[in-house]
């Protein structure tokens, strides 16, 4: 059991619409800013593993994968289209020691 803070961005580094890939040392994530808020999530779509670098953030903080148009709620990862589909892995972000970090607790 433990907690890890993994730095993914400096303060003010990301601007609205940026999509920054970060390798956490195994799996990769994307960090984006939408509606002024930062979000971190898996780089691969949970449907068919399409790379989400080119995914689009739509109104209502929905992330749409280009592969087959699966849409996910960026706040929860819930698959909203199609409802009940596999959820996107969304990771919590916190400021820690002056950096924006993914917080992983197990």
């Amino acid at each position, binding site marked *: 059991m433990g907690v890890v803070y*993994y730095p993914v961005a400096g303060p003010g580094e990301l601007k609205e619409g940026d999509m920054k890939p970060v390798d956490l*040392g195994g799996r990769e994530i994307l960090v984006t800013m939408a509606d002024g808020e930062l979000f971190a999530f*898996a780089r691969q779509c*949970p449907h068919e*593993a*399409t790379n989400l670098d080119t995914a689009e953030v739509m109104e209502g903080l929905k992330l749409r994968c280009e*592969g*087959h148009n699966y849409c996910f709620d960026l706040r929860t990862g819930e698959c909203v289209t*199609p409802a009940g589909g596999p959820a996107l892995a969304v990771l919590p972000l916190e400021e820690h020691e002056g950096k924006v970090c993914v917080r992983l607790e*197990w």
Partner: protein
Amino acid sequence: MDYDLLIRGGKIIDGSGLPGYLGDVGVKDGKIVELGRLRGSAARTIDATGLVVSPGFVDHHTHLDAQILWDPYGTSEPENGVTSVVMGNCGLALAPVEDGVEEAIVKSFVRVEAMPREALIEGVPWGWHSFGEYLDALEGKTGINVGGLIGHIALRQTVMGEESVEREATPAEVERMKALVREGMEGGALGISTNRNSRHYREDGKPVASRLASLDELFELSDVLAEMNSGVIETIANLSDEEQIAWYDQLARRTARPVIWQSVLHRYSAPDFWRVQLEAIAPTFRDGYRAYGLANTVPIYNRFNLNNAQVFDEWPTWKNIMFLPEFVRKQAFSDPETRAKLKAEFAEKRYTNFHKRWDLIPVVEVAKPENERYLGKTIAELGEMRRQDPVDAMIDLSLEEDLKTTFLSANGGDPEAMGQIMRSPYVLIGVSDAGAHVQFNASFGYSTTLLGLHVRERGAMPLEQAIYKLTFQVASVYGLNDRGLLRPGYAADVCVFNPETVRARDWEWVQDYPANTRRLAQKADGIEYTIVNGTVIYEGGRLTGALPGHVLRGSAYAGRPEPVLV
């Protein structure tokens, strides 16, 4: 010469489902003229000893509408034994189109079918208006035979402009659409297609136009086919709603035309849903109407190891651990308290997409030679061999191998269920989706997967039934009345393949799209010759460069209008 081409000594499986027999196939002027033990002279003879000679496959679910304009073979279709394709599925077609509507159609293609915009912009030489004119633009320019469905999206965009993505049509607009359907059918369309899938948007985030249509509108457009006694109605709606079967049934009964709907698939998360679907559609057929479900032959696999798995993201502790840096993750997996937490999460009783069927997930790659005995064993078997709980066995073996042990998981595709689905008379096999999602996947090999994986390796059905499913069944439903069988008078569309080696290869990247964009292709092993209208287009692993393809026109085709001299 008695024949232009003589295919000698193969096992003829003629597409009817009847048992295969040894014999020769004589071809003249693009048609099959004789079958049996033939003794006449021929300009060219192909020795098919040890090979199967079948009709060329009819790939009825493609999105090659654009690709065929720059790639006359729709590669990798011939490489997989396909001689005829149907385009314009899922409501998406490049016609009818009014000047100025092209961009709206591109927006739909780019988003729904994930085609590179720059390829469409550079590769589609617009200029046609009616559906027939689009088909005319392909005449004499293709290596394979091509037919198409009138796309509901193009119909609405053409008649209603941008209001087509905002509202239902007025009665007058429906009448205009009906007139375009009539014109398109007279131009040679094989039917119409629509799209009611709530996942399908245009590039600008608006729903594709056909989603705004009322069912009444769709039914009225379909009535045109009923009046003309021609064509199929192809649909895509949400893939897992049983309720939709009611309107497929209604449409089939109202029009007496074949309806094709998507899809009948096995999923481990809803393992009996395919049975529910097939039972729901049975009364339609029992009463003498046709509404075929569409099934794919290719199970979707996911290779994972404990370094990159995303299949466990549905459980919070698993998710967090799988994102940890590798050395921390290994520590976490080794910690007994964490291990207990991970197993407790799997034991929770709740619905999850991942099926936790350890008896279905084999080890496909090991890092250490001493672990090769585990290859092909499922995680459940791994547990038995190591006298451990299966989850412990998966984690411990992975830790011993530096998290490099690779497993193979599928969301669906139980072999027994797939066999039953594909054998159903209510199901059409297909969904190559050729020309779509070109940078994400390629399923050109749906035919060679059926022949290699399902027929040879799994014994899911006799070869004769599989050939029937790939040829005559599809040709019959789509009204391709001189194709899909090896019989005198039929078009000489032929596939010659080795039943012992035929199989789909892995996907490969090719850079052959306009604007220098790349895409995925999929070739096959064991396809020796692909012959279209009597001309060899593929042999020895290469395309020949010949362009013998015909445009496949439906039974309502009125012929090209004669030019009027004034």
